[in-house]
């Protein structure tokens, strides 16, 4: 399996993603520079987290217009897999590859903390090995993670089952009075496109991969992708 991790100026989780993937599955991971214009022969393209272009203007706005994004778009149109994590998710929405936008957290503050998620569907290449009944824990670290989409489109997203990850209260905490960390509509933490090959998520699976750092729920995401690419679902 061949993976491309794109480095935009200001990306800072690119090496982390590479490390997490290499430690979890049998994959060759290449770093791709934002000015490159081709992305042939990759099974998975990852847009990593960070502060590309310093989050200036709007997070992800400038990266979405960089040369490599044309290749990412073609790659997505061919039906190949694209994963955007955190800033990568913001870039995918700015590039129009995913619906919606990520607004500044309701608290107006950056939040770095562990976070519980429900996997809404395992009918995607990214989640096929997850058990939707079991919540998982991926950390979040962002200032702009409040998912927003106008009402009709949001309803459409929900009814077509394209919400993949949702924030849920930590185990033992009552949903009553609980608020998601950033104010996201419908507690949305990650969504997929209509075709089902482009996933964007605010939480960081690569930060929940290495055993010595704690939980390893993230490994399941990498293994799902590997499993799906081998033809299983």
């Amino acid at each position: 399996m061949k993976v491309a991790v794109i480095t935009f100026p200001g990306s800072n989780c690119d090496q982390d993603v590479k490390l997490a993937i290499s430690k979890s599955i049998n994959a060759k991971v290449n770093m791709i520079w934002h000015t490159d214009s081709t992305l042939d022969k990759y099974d998975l393209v990852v847009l990593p987290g960070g502060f590309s272009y310093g989050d200036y203007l709007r997070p992800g706005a400038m990266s979405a217009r960089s040369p490599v994004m044309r290749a990412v778009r073609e790659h997505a149109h061919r039906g190949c897999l694209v994963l955007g994590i955190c800033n990568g998710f913001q870039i995918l929405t700015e590039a129009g590859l995913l619906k919606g936008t990520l607004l500044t957290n309701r608290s107006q503050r950056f939040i770095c903390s562990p976070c519980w998620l429900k996997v809404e569907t395992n009918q995607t290449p990214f989640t096929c090995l997850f058990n939707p009944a079991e919540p998982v824990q991926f950390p979040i670290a962002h200032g702009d993670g409040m998912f927003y989409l106008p009402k009709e489109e949001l309803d459409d997203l929900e009814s077509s089952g394209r919400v993949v990850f949702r924030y849920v209260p930590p185990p033992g905490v009552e949903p009553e009075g609980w608020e998601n960390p950033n104010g996201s509509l419908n507690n949305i933490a990650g969504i997929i496109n209509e075709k089902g090959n482009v996933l964007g998520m605010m939480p960081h699976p690569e930060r929940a991969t290495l055993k010595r750092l704690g939980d390893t729920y993230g490994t399941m995401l990498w293994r799902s992708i590997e499993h799906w690419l081998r033809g299983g679902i």
Partner: protein
Amino acid sequence: MTPEEAGLDTKEWEELKSALKREPNDLELRMVGVMWSEHCSYKSTRSLLASLPKDGPYVIAGEGENAGVVRLNHKLGLAFKVESHNHPSAISPYEGAATGVGGIIRDILAMGARPVASMDGLFFGSSDNSRNRRISSGVVRGIGGYGNAVGVPTVGGLTIYDQCYDENPLVNAFCAGILELDKACSSKTAKPGMQVLILGARTGRDGIAGAAFASTGLSGDDGANKPQIQIGDPFYEKLLIEACIELLKEGKIQAMQDMGAAGILSSTSEVAHKSGNGIDIHCEKIPLRETMEPWEIFLSESQERMLLVCLPEDIPYVEAVAKKWNLECALVGEMTDTGFYRVFNRGELLAELPVGILGGDSPVKNWPSSPPKRSASIKTSRSLNAEDVVTELLRVMQHPSMGDHSWIYKQYDSMVQLRTLLGPGNPVAALWIEGAGTVVFSMEANPWICAQDPFNGTALVTALSIRHLSVAGADPMGITNCLNFPSPEIPEQYWELEESVKGLATAARELKCPVVSGNVSLYNESPTSRIMPSPLIVSAGFIPEGINPLPPKPSSNDEGLEVFLV
């Protein structure tokens, strides 16, 4: 410009003239004024700091470098340092704290290390007023805003509240980096004939003479200090880090220096002085954002710039890497064997000073020292009954300094780079270093004890910090420290500083944990208040690979286990 305006007293002015055997011109005078300021020259503390133990089994580089370096194994080293950004943070909390983080990161980078972790020591006023709230929220946002974006995790810190910081908040920024020992960088390795480049941002009129500003008390009139503030751009810094590391990997940097206080002037004169050479700088080659006078160019503290010293044949390579990362790169001068610091503008010689005058041979100041007369109200011992103990304990526990600081560290990315074993919220911070083992940091301060007894207080804080390492199972490697004090010009205050340094030296020596780097911030006082002696200590420890690190965190399964007091 008079000598006084340049910040020189009569004695210094006489010394300068006799060293030069002539009167300096305007530009020279300004340059000397800044380099002889407290902030750049350590003139009040140089002799005190000489007593600190500096050598130990782990130490590779210490004195006179941008940061201390200790050895983890035969391949890898750890560079670390803490630095104050107190005055700028008081004036403009967000920008001041942010550029503090940026500056210490560049110090670590200058050793040839990749910055891997930050910590912040914050001392805020305790009075509940809008100014204090503005300062604390601005500082925290600034530290997060810079650290998060630049991709260096903030893995711990310390927050102290006391009224003495109402007017004089303190922001101490710590950073650590990992380097390959055979690629370590130093300003000592520059040689005549090598080229001098500035990599990074253009120079503008920000933070001019900030170093001199940091060497005086706050005037109370914020307005007057306004133009001196620098603006940080973590995005640009991230590019600068990556570009420098790429160049280091390829061995294209012979010597490197960050541009901190007194910008181009201090970085270039330090390289020349420490390597024992001379240097020629050509003013017109320095990329500017706006038209500026030569003295402004030399003193500007524009952020996100590094000084590189490279071999002539490597210049095209360096320029290509700069282009890739979209950074300005300009060849501005060359190392010489003249022993002189020379400034040219389009060939015209503007300044010519012996390198030593700028780089280190500034006159020292010996302030009078006298122990304060203890007021009778301070009792050294007092008998307490059980009830008193509970009351006192509750009083201490309710102090905001003991409170929950998670509102602060939740705003910091503590996990990026995937090394954080223990982040904020733990007694120590711990990082996993691939190919070496676990590095542990402990940051401590206790100004209240230091105010009672600066010698024992500082020794105690140092011992506490090192004890934290031992509890985590780590072998102490070295200490960095930030000495935050009020003006040394008052004999009682100078005495406190003296005692504190002695306390640090004694504890470090006894506990065999050498002081590898540090920073002094004096004049933390306003017309109406001064800070308590506030030395801050960070110690670094190591647990080699293969040894089971860090005792497990207490958990509910521990019920029934016995507790020992050792």
